[in-house]
């Protein structure tokens, strides 16, 4: 429908090749293709169903109650941090320190308790610290014009070092979290996933249904245009860093309350990379402007099921790591192809 000559230079959209024919495909195959193009989550959804069916067929243990609890507890932090990363990826940014914030928040609680603060206060202050770390990430990125990749790499190492120094390299127990409070915040089997789902739904609504979410998309999709329209683009970025940091710190608390012990040497990169992977295989573009919370959540399910399923059928963790890598590559390739098809279908 559009004249091809209208593609202007400097355009941010993935431009179709100039002579691309218009491919208005018909029939069931065409509408299926259109579904996959317009709903990026569709691909990862099919993948998720496929691997769940596969593992369920391979071993009956897979859908036992205990195993499902294992899966959801594994995926909860990935989902929460993953949907937080969706905000940043949509803005064209990334936070490499999120996994370390996830680990540092229970340490802060431990230190404050040792200093004599009651648990409630320790947790509150710890969450405020997480917000502050997010604010620092954001402010350095927008005020000093440092790429967030670099900013958060710095924060990552700083936090890792801080934990090693203050903990004196010794493990610690997560203290004083018993009773109903402990049950709600981590100990109950369904507590972590429950909170995770709450956060996921809340952030989905924020991204798709509120002014702030629309400004996130606008800022990531067309930074100059959004700024020209008067959107406070830098504030939008700082808030997004803070949302992710808060989510990561909160789910970190729940996770440590469940596990009850803290290891200063464990790096936060594992959960961070899993979270970014979940976001990316879920269909969020690294180039900004396009993010899907639902996709990231299904991405987290895929990673959780893969890890657990391989465990059950006796494949080692090493092979799991290799498979995760291949899944990411395949998912990315499919997504890039789909956006190319999408660009062609539109012209």
């Amino acid at each position: 429908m559009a004249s091809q000559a209208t593609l202007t230079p400097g355009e941010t959209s993935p431009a179709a090749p100039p002579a691309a024919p218009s491919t208005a495909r018909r029939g069931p195959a065409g509408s299926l293709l259109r579904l996959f193009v317009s709903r990026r989550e569709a691909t990862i959804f099919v993948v998720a169903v496929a691997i769940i069916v596969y593992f369920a067929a391979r071993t009956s243990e897979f859908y036992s109650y205990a195993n499902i609890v294992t899966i959801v507890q594994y995926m909860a932090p990935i989902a929460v941090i993953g949907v937080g990363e969706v905000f940043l990826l949509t803005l064209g940014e990334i936070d490499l320190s999120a996994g370390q914030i996830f680990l540092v928040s229970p340490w802060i609680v431990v230190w404050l308790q040792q200093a004599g603060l009651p648990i409630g206060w320790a947790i509150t202050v710890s969450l405020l610290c997480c917000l502050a770390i997010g604010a620092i990430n954001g402010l350095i990125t927008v005020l000093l014009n440092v790429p967030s990749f670099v900013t958060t790499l710095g924060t990552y190492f700083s936090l890792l070092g801080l934990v090693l120094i203050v903990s004196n390299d010794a493990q610690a127990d997560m203290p004083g979290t018993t009773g109903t409070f402990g049950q709600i915040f981590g100990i109950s089997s369904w507590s972590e996933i429950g909170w995770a789902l709450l956060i996921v739904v809340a952030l989905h609504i924020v991204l798709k249904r509120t002014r702030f979410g629309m400004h996130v998309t606008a800022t990531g999709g067309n930074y100059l245009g959004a700024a020209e329209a008067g959107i406070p683009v830098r504030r939008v970025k700082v808030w997004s860093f803070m949302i992710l940091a808060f989510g990561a710190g909160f789910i970190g608390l729940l996770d440590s309350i469940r596990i009850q012990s803290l290891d200063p040497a464990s790096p936060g990169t594992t959960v961070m990379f899993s979270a970014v992977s979940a976001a990316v295989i879920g269909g969020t573009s690294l180039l900004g402007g396009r993010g899907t919370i639902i996709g990231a959540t299904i991405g987290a399910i895929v990673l959780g099921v893969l890890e657990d399923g391989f465990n059950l059928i006796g494949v080692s963790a090493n092979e799991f790591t290799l498979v995760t890598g291949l899944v990411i590559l395949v998912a990315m390739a499919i997504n890039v192809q789909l956006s190319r098809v999408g660009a062609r279908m539109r012209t």
Partner: protein
Amino acid sequence: MTAIDEAAGTTPVLQTEGITKRFGAVVALRGVDIQLRSGEVLGLVGDNGAGKSTFVKIVCGFQRPDSGRILIDGREVHLHSVKDARAHGIEAVYHDLALVPQLSVYQNLFLNREVTTLGRLGWLSTRKMRAQAQAYLDDIKVSIPNIEAEAETLSGGQRQAIAVARATRQNAKILLLDEPLAAMGAKESALIIDLVKDLAANRGVSILVIDHNYTHLFELCDRVNVFQQGRVTFDRRVEDTSLEELTELMVSEYRRQVMAGHRELGDEVTAP
């Protein structure tokens, strides 16, 4: 036509007097006087470096003049920023810059002017925005098949139309359009020409158009001003001039510059 004739006696919507601007040793503007009347489409032509872009940047508040006055509705204004200019109803529209490709047509129309409920929570009233967007586009006779479509799926002409629509919906009274028909097919051009004419004639929007393409100018404008060496040297209504006259004007300017260049070169050679 009649709109201009009626307006001829009245105060111009936008008037500049003796606008000058220099960048170091380079004098960009040497006293620009223009008058833009309500509902008028005024074309600015001129060679590269004649000063039209600098002039437009000053009018939209992006740069400040060294001297001269800008009057809106006869009252002098000082435009310190793009925001200032916008507050006075002046808005530059760049179709390749204005829209967010990943947002839908109606979301782009309401960008940063979203209709929300629940106060600070900023809950988007999607249905209201959709209805208002459709109503407004119908009102200014811009037909977009689907206002839910993402902006990047639109043609260049449609994007331009949406960008213009957003500006006027947000009460812009003076639009600055930079080559609005550039790289557009006939159908696309027609869409923009109709929109510009309709906005000017029926809504009293005044429009400044910069273009290198005279054919486009004759299609779009009521009047043209020619910029030469930082001044407006020619001011005619389109029906009182012709493509040939404008072309001749520019060619003679080009010849004059070449001659001047030779003379300068000659001077340098003879004076060691």
